[in-house]
């Protein structure tokens, strides 16, 4: 029988799934608690952005965006190492965080988990870019805080079958 997510768009786009995924990943992999932050998403002059694409019954992307010093703190929590700059290990860590967030988020809805694949992460540094989606089915964009650091997670769905 052909599977469709059309009937369960309300489950897929439930913003609580994103919050639960972020809390789970940060608690288990970094050992830190984080909470939703009502403030604007802009943080530091230097940004590190990771993107993991969704393909299958849902196409779109999970985008993780944070400032340079927050990225180094996240990588330090993951590895136990100290970082003086945004090196390959920091970028790799941020890509992996985005990968786990995308996996945890799609895992909240069984039909989505089984019928949607993930791309390997792409990591972008700098801030002079736009992610443009013509007419998204839905978009979730939440900002979070852990300690004095902030990050934003966006789920953008450009098509759902």
């Amino acid at each position, binding site marked *: 029988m052909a599977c469709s997510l059309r009937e369960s768009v309300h489950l897929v786009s439930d913003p609580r799934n994103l919050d639960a995924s972020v809390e789970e990943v940060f608690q*288990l992999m970094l050992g830190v608690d984080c909470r939703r932050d009502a403030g604007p998403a802009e943080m530091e002059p230097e940004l590190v952005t990771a993107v993991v694409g969704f393909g299958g019954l849902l196409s779109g992307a999970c985008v993780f965006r944070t400032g340079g010093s927050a990225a180094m703190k996240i990588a330090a929590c993951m590895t136990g190492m100290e970082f003086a700059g945004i090196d390959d*290990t920091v970028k790799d860590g941020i890509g992996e965080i985005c*990968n786990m967030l995308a996996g*945890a988020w799609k895992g909240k809805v069984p039909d989505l988990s089984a019928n949607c694949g993930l791309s390997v992460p792409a990591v972008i540094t700098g801030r002079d870019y736009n992610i443009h989606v013509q007419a998204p089915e839905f978009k979730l964009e939440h900002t979070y805080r852990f300690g004095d650091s902030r990050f934003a997670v966006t789920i953008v769905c450009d098509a759902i079958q």
Partner: protein
Amino acid sequence: MSEIRTLIVDDSSVMRKIVERSLRQAGLDPLIVHEAGNGADGLELLKVKTVDLILSDINMPAMDGLEFLRQLRAQNLAPGVPVVMITTESSEEHVKQAILAGAQGYIRKPFTAEQVKERVLPLLDAA
């Protein structure tokens, strides 16, 4: 406990470090760790190294974890060595594919050291 020789296959160097740390926290010490960034490199490494345990990601460039498993069995590399998949893909279908390809265990990312211990130690005891 005698030395445990382990191969960790993951395209993320950070994740390889986290898996290694989790194995040590699970009591696998002394531990000798070999690392590979994808399935193809993992197969090459197994042609020259003997290991007691393999942990592999699924989503990787060049050769993914499921193809790595299939090739491992087809080439009869590391016979009898337990393979545990550690991945963000957690659906029943993915678990079924991994088991059919020859995996003995499955750990979903994100994970705790306790989960690694629960799934890995019984496989080493049985091997």
